[in-house]
């Protein structure tokens, strides 16, 4: 689109559930391109296929047909194991229900993805430091040793975001990240995501709340498994963020 490297490219992506008469086309040929540094919202009514799309983009599901090219790598036909590698190395996840492990402290939850790294493994002592830094960047230094049930919903979601950032993912995927939060916490979380985006992260978020989607710079609307619209979302802060992304993108 504008010279930034493509992070996501899908070609006639299809997902079919069931067979015969009860066959459902959850995705019916989706073509999208998302470049590095973009902050994209995927919207659509329930049953539109947006969750299916996110699952495929998240490498947790495989398309029935079509191609998904993640950062130049066609992952459509990858095995479960290969997809797990991709998830650990390239992706960071933020869930609606946080999915923190209840028996681990905030710090340990943040460190969790580093355990499954196969390359560039960091020594255990350094992991703590790195995790503390990331926790600091989401403003939770003083909550590092709290258990999830000692944190508010907004704080738990920050821990989850820190966990998503720990492996320096190429792409952050958020599934209704504010779905369980009150309005104030929702806006805090969106501000945090926006800050991340401003520092050059690529973020794809599924939401059904228009004011949450408003934080993004582009809104993809899915309806009946097809792309219904793909619009720029004119927000002023984007220009600055974009130029920084481009510089970082080229440095890589």
């Amino acid at each position, binding site marked *: 689109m504008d010279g930034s490297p493509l992070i996501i490219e899908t070609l006639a992506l299809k997902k079919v559930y069931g067979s015969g008469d009860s066959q459902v086309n959850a995705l019916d040929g989706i073509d999208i391109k998302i470049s590095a540094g973009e902050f994209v919202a995927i919207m659509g009514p329930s049953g539109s296929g947006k969750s299916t799309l996110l699952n495929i983009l998240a490498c*947790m599901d495989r398309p029935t047909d079509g191609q998904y090219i993640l950062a130049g790598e066609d992952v459509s036909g990858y095995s*479960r194991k290969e997809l*797990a*590698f991709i*998830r650990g*190395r390239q992706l960071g*996840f933020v869930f609606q229900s946080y999915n923190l492990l209840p*028996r681990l402290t905030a710090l340990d939850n943040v460190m*969790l993805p580093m355990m*499954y790294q196969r390359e560039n493994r960091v020594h255990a002592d350094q992991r703590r430091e790195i995790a503390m830094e990331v926790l600091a960047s989401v403003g939770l230094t003083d909550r590092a040793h709290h258990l999830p049930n000692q944190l508010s919903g907004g704080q738990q979601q920050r821990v989850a975001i820190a966990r998503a950032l720990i492996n320096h993912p190429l792409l952050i995927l958020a599934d209704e990240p504010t779905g369980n939060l009150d309005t104030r916490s929702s806006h805090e979380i969106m501000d945090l995501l926006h800050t991340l985006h401003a520092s050059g992260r690529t973020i794809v978020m599924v939401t059904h709340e228009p004011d949450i989607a408003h934080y993004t710079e582009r809104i993809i609307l899915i309806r009946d498994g097809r792309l219904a619209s793909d619009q720029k979302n004119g927000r002023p802060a984007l220009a600055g963020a974009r130029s920084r992304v481009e510089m970082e993108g080229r440095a890589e």
Partner: protein
Amino acid sequence: MNIGELLKVSWKSLVSNKLRSLLTMLGVIIGVAAVIVMIAVSAGTEATISEAINGLGTNLVFISGTVTRGGPGQGPQNQQGGLVYDDMTAIRERTSGVAGVTVDQQSSVTIKYGDVTLEDVSVVGTTPDYPTVRDVQVETGRFFTDKEQERTTKVVVLGSGIAEELFGEADPIGQSINVNTTKLTVIGVLAPKGLVSGTDFDEQIYTPISVVFKKFTPSMFSRIMGDRVRQIIVSVDENANMDEVVQQISILLANRHEVSLDSPDFSIRTQADIIETQESTTSSFRTLLAWVAGVSLVVGGIGIMNIMLVSVTERTREIGLRQAIGATPGDIQVQFLSEALMLSLLGGVLGILAGVGGSYLFGSLSDMRTVIEPFSIALSFTSAAFIGIFFGYIPAQKAAQLDPIVALRHE
């Protein structure tokens, strides 16, 4: 994940459910403890038997009389069967391959010396061959001679325990002791031998059998019993064939007693028979324990599988999350296997402690001896590990095959 992290994660998960983990391990603990106790009992029995073999003397044949006649209301019954003193002489003279023959006729007596009175002491009436046949040593003094035997000389040889109880540090040789109403002169003391298959050689006194016949057989029996003896003990020459000697003795005694070989009035047992009897009494017990051990190991394994399956269901979301952040199916499988293995090995270690403790306890509370074998510890630890992997496999497989999307939506 490296091994250290893996173990840490597994450990945390077990510790967070202490009671459940402990109860899960119980089956393995019992199984492993049973394996160790079982082997300790077997080893103890074997040790006892091999000591008995050495203690009995070598190549012994024990001949005892059996009850053959006497009906109801016919007065004192002939408990001693048909063995008489002359049978011993006959065996000595007319059987080949015999190294020594002795008899053993016991009576219960009261001994007095000075202020010391010992009641219910066994006096063993025997022959000069006794030390050779029964493999006992004379420590001080001497055993009695054939001449003393023939002349019914009132001499006595003391077991080491009796000697100490009567005389303490003093020298018993040449002293006279009162045995019931008879005065016997002490001519020797045996070396300590201890308890061998139920007989404490140290707590008996030994006199010529002629003295026992004359002095220590109750008079009402003596008329009936004459020179009957309880037991004849034959020591077979080490170059002779044991079965042949037994055969010769059987025929000889059957002829002398005028009974048929099919219904003899005596029974012959060799050392091998005695060992066999001892072994068979413990072997049924061992079989039982082996079953208990095996069954509880399997039950323990099923318990582990059960709890691991519950754990997989409970932690479905955790599994989904771990998969989302990069855990492969293999990682998940290894994690749950490692938890199952940790449960079973921990159970194994506790079981080993319980088994070792139990073996000591068992050894001290019952008359069975227990010997802890190092290999039993290795064996039980290995079987615990095997149980963990075997019964942990299905739950781990189930966890690994969870679809991350479904797992993350699990409530």
